[in-house]
C-alpha cells in the first residue's frame, strides 16, 4: 500500500519539474515509508511512495511494460493477481517483477479500460502511455483507496491525498461552502467533491481518461443489486452456506502478502467472523487487535477477549482514554482531510500505531458487513416506517420502532413522546430517499451553527436534490432495502467510513486495511439475496448470522449489534484538552476561519461545559465545528511550506531529454 502522485500536461508540453513531483511524493511519506520512485518525461510525471507488501525486492514503482511505452503508479492490492498473471503469461506477456502492479499494466495492454472488470482489489492507479501520450486513472469499486485531482492551466495534478496536491504553491487552498453543507448533512462531501474548492475526487467505481486536451470521467461499475424477479429462490440454509464459502475465499485471497497479516477484532459478529475464518482455515496464531475504552459505555472488551480466547489468537488490546481521543483529533483531521461529525475514527488511528509497533503492515477488518448484509438500524427503521405508513394510526405498528432503539426508548416513560419523531414523513414513502430522510434531516440541524456568510453561500443549495438527481438509472428497479443500501454505501460508507475512518486512519501509521465483506464476488451474491432473508422480521443480518452459526459461539453470532462509537464531549472538554478546544473555538479564531457563528458556538460551549446532558445533535455539532476549525488551521492558515526534501528516491526514470 502506498501513495501515488502525478503531473500530466494534457494541453501542450514542457518537461515536468522533478522537484515539484518529488515534493508531492514526499507529502505522502506516511503512506509509503519504505521507498520512493519517480518517472519523468516531457509531458508527464508519475511518483510513488511505497509500503512494501508484495515482492519486497523488485517491486519498486513506477513499473513499465515490455517495451517501456506504458508506465504505472499504483496504490493498493489486486487480490486475484496470481490467476490474472497466469492467463497473461499464457498470452505471451513477459514480467520482470512478481508484483500485482505489473499484472494491471499487462491486463490494460490486453483489454484497455475493460481491465477494470477483472480486477478484484482495492486500488487507485494511473497509467501513462508515453507513446500515445494519454493517461488512464482508475479507482476501485467502493473507493477503498483514495484519488484526488485538480486541473490548473492545462495541467492535471493527481495524488492519493490532497496535501500532496497542495504542495504546489500555485494551487489555491480554499474551503468549499457546498462541501461544508454536504458534510453537515451527509457526514462527508458527496462523491466527487472534497472540502476544498477546485480539488476533485475521482469517485468510487470511476475511471478517467486524459487524452490530448481532453479529460473524461466515467463510471465503470454499479452496485450489483438484482431486481426481485432475478433474486434467489434458494432455501435460506443454502444461501447461508454460499455466503460462508464466498467469504472464506474472499479472506483467503486477502491473506496474500509477503508480510504477515493480522485482523481487527471488535467483539461483534463481523470482525469475529473474519478472524474465525482466518484462524480456523489459514493462520492459526493470527495476531488480533482490539479497541477498549476507558469509558465503559463504549467498551466491548469482554467480547473481544472471549473471541480471542475461543479462537486462540494472539490478541493485543488497547485501552483508549478520553484525553487521548481528544488530543489526537487534530492529527486525524490532517490525515482524513475532512471535517468529522464523530470521534470514532480516532481510536482506529491510535490502534494502527499499535499495529505498526507489532511489526504488522496489513490487517483484515469487518468493514462493509452491515452495509452488504443489512446490519444497520437505518435499514430496519425504514422497513418498520414503511410498514407503519400503511396504517399510520396503528399503535402496534408504531411500537415496533421502540424495539429498534432500546437506548432511546430505555426510559419507557418517553415512548409516547418519542414516537412522533419517527412518524414524521410517513407520507413520504414515495421519496427515493425515504430511508435516510430522518437521519439527514437531523444531521442538517447542525448547519444552524454556520456563520451568516457560509449560510448565505449555500442558501440556494439543496443537497437532497443533488442526491436524487444523481441516482443511477437502475435504482427504481431495486427493492426498498437495496435502495437504502445503495444510499448508505455510496455516501456514508464510501465517503466517510472507508475514508476518514478507514484508509486514512490506518495509513496515518502506514497500515493497510483489507475488507473481505466488500469482495466483488461476495457482493455479486449478496445482490441476489431477497430482502426478507437479509433482515428477517426485525432480525438484522439474519443470513449472515446463520452462516456463522457453528463457527462462532452463539453469544457472539447472535449478539445484538453494538454500534462502534467513541466519546465526544468528555474527550474535547475533559482534562488538558479543554484549553485547546476553547482556544480553537474562541471568537477571533472562529471569525478568522469564517465558517461558524461565534455567538451560537459560544452558547453550545456554555451548555456543554455547564454539564447539561449533551444531545446527539450537540455531539455532532461540537465534533463538526472543532474538526472544521482544525481543517482550516492545518490546510488553509498554516499549511506547511517548504518542507525539507525527503530521502533520495530509490528509482528515477528521467526521460525528459529524450525526443517524444
Amino acid at each position, binding site marked *: 500500500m502506498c501513495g501515488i502522485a502525478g503531473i500530466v500536461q494534457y494541453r501542450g508540453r514542457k518537461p515536468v519539474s522533478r522537484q515539484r513531483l518529488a515534493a508531492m511524493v514526499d507529502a505522502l511519506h506516511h503512506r509509503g515509508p519504505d521507498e520512493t520512485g519517480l518517472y519523468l518525461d516531457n509531458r508527464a510525471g508519475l511518483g510513488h511512495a511505497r509500503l512494501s507488501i508484495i515482492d519486497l525486492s523488485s517491486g519498486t514503482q513506477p513499473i513499465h511494460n515490455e517495451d517501456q511505452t506504458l508506465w504505472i503508479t499504483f496504490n493498493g492490492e489486486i487480490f486475484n493477481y496470481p490467476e490474472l498473471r497466469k492467463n497473461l503469461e499464457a498470452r505471451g506477456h513477459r514480467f520482470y517483477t512478481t508484483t500485482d502492479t505489473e499484472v494491471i499494466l499487462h491486463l490494460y495492454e490486453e483489454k484497455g479500460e475493460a481491465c477494470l472488470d477483472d480486477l478484484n482489489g482495492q486500488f487507485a492507479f494511473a497509467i501513462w502511455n508515453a507513446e500515445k501520450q494519454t493517461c488512464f486513472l482508475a479507482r476501485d469499486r467502493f473507493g477503498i483507496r483514495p484519488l484526488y485531482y485538480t486541473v490548473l492551466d492545462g495541467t492535471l495534478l493527481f495524488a492519493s491525498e490532497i496535501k500532496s496536491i497542495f504542495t504546489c504553491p500555485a494551487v489555491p487552498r480554499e474551503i468549499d461552502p457546498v462541501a461544508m453543507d454536504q458534510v453537515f448533512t451527509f457526514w462527508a462531501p458527496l462523491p466527487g467533491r472534497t472540502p476544498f474548492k477546485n480539488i476533485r475526487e475521482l469517485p468510487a467505481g470511476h475511471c478517467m481518461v486524459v487524452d490530448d486536451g481532453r479529460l473524461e470521467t466515467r463510471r465503470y461499475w454499479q452496485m450489483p443489486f438484482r431486481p426481485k424477479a432475478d433474486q434467489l429462490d434458494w432455501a435460506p440454509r443454502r444461501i447461508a452456506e454460499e455466503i460462508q464459502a464466498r467469504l472464506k475465499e474472499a479472506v483467503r485471497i486477502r491473506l496474500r502478502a509477503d508480510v504477515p497479516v493480522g485482523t481487527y477484532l471488535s467483539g461483534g459478529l463481523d470482525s469475529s467472523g473474519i478472524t474465525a475464518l482466518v484462524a480456523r482455515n489459514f493462520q492459526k496464531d493470527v495476531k488480533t487487535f482490539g479497541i477498549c475504552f476507558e469509558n465503559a459505555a463504549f467498551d466491548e472488551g469482554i467480547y473481544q477477549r472471549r473471541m480471542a480466547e475461543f479462537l486462540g489468537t494472539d490478541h493485543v488490546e488497547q485501552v483508549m482514554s478520553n484525553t487521548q481521543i481528544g488530543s489526537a483529533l487534530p492529527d486525524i483531521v490532517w490525515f482524513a482531510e475532512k471535517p468529522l461529525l464523530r470521534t470514532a475514527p480516532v481510536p482506529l488511528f491510535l490502534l494502527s500505531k499499535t499495529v505498526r509497533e507489532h511489526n504488522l503492515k496489513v490487517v483484515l477488518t469487518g468493514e462493509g458487513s452491515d452495509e452488504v448484509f443489512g446490519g444497520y438500524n437505518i435499514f430496519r427503521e425504514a422497513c418498520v416506517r414503511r410498514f407503519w405508513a400503511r396504517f399510520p394510526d396503528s399503535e402496534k405498528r408504531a411500537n415496533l420502532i421502540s424495539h429498534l432503539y432500546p437506548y432511546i426508548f430505555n426510559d*419507557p416513560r418517553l415512548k409516547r*413522546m418519542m414516537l412522533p419523531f419517527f412518524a*414524521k414523513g410517513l407520507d413520504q414513502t414515495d421519496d427515493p430517499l425515504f430511508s435516510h430522510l430522518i437521519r439527514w434531516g437531523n444531521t442538517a440541524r447542525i448547519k*444552524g451553527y454556520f456563520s451568516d456568510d457560509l449560510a448565505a453561500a449555500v442558501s440556494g443549495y439543496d443537497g437532497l436534490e443533488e442526491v436524487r438527481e444523481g441516482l443511477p438509472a437502475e435504482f427504481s428497479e431495486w427493492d426498498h432495502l437495496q435502495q437504502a443500501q445503495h444510499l448508505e454505501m455510496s455516501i456514508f460508507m464510501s465517503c466517510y467510513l472507508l475514508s476518514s475512518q478507514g484508509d486514512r486512519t490506518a495509513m496515518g501509521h502506514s497500515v493497510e486495511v483489507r475488507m473481505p465483506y466488500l469482495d466483488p464476488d461476495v457482493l455479486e451474491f449478496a445482490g441476489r439475496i431477497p430482502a426478507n432473508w437479509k433482515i428477517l422480521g426485525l432480525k438484522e443480518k439474519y443470513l449472515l448470522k446463520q452462516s456463522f452459526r457453528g463457527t462462532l459461539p452463539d453469544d457472539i453470532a447472535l449478539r445484538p449489534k453494538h454500534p462502534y462509537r467513541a466519546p465526544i464531549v468528555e474527550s474535547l472538554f475533559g482534562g488538558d484538552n479543554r484549553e485547546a478546544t476553547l482556544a480553537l473555538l474562541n471568537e477571533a479564531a472562529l471569525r478568522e476561519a469564517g465558517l461558524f457563528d461565534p455567538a451560537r458556538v459560544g452558547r453550545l460551549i456554555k*451548555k456543554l461545559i455547564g454539564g447539561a446532558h449533551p444531545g446527539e445533535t450537540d455531539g455532532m455539532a461540537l465534533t463538526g465545528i472543532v474538526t472544521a476549525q482544525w481543517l482550516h488551521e492545518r490546510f488553509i492558515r498554516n499549511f506547511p511550506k517548504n518542507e525539507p526534501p525527503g530521502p533520495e528516491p530509490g528509482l528515477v526514470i528521467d526521460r525528459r531529454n529524450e525526443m517524444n
Partner: protein
Amino acid sequence: MPDNQTIDPSTIREFIVETFLFGDDTGLAEDTSFMESGLIDSTGILEVVDFIERTSGARIQDDHLVPENLDSIERITRFINSLAAEAPAVE
C-alpha cells in the same frame, strides 16, 4: 419538600431558543409544535423534560409525558402551572 413553581412562558421560550434554536427565535410562536416543525429532535425531548423537572421542582409522572403537555411553549406553560396549582402551600 420543594414547592412547585409557576412559570412564565418567556422562561420556556428562552430555554427553547437558547438550547435548540441557536438564539434565533424567528418563526417560534407560543403554539408551534416542536415535533411537527422539527425544532427538537428525539434526544432534545430529554432536555425538555430535564428542564421542566428542574424549573418546576416536580418529578413528572409517566402518564404526563405526552405531547399534549410538552409539545409547545403554550402546552408546557399550561402543564407546569397546573402542577404548581396542585402543589402544597409554601411552608
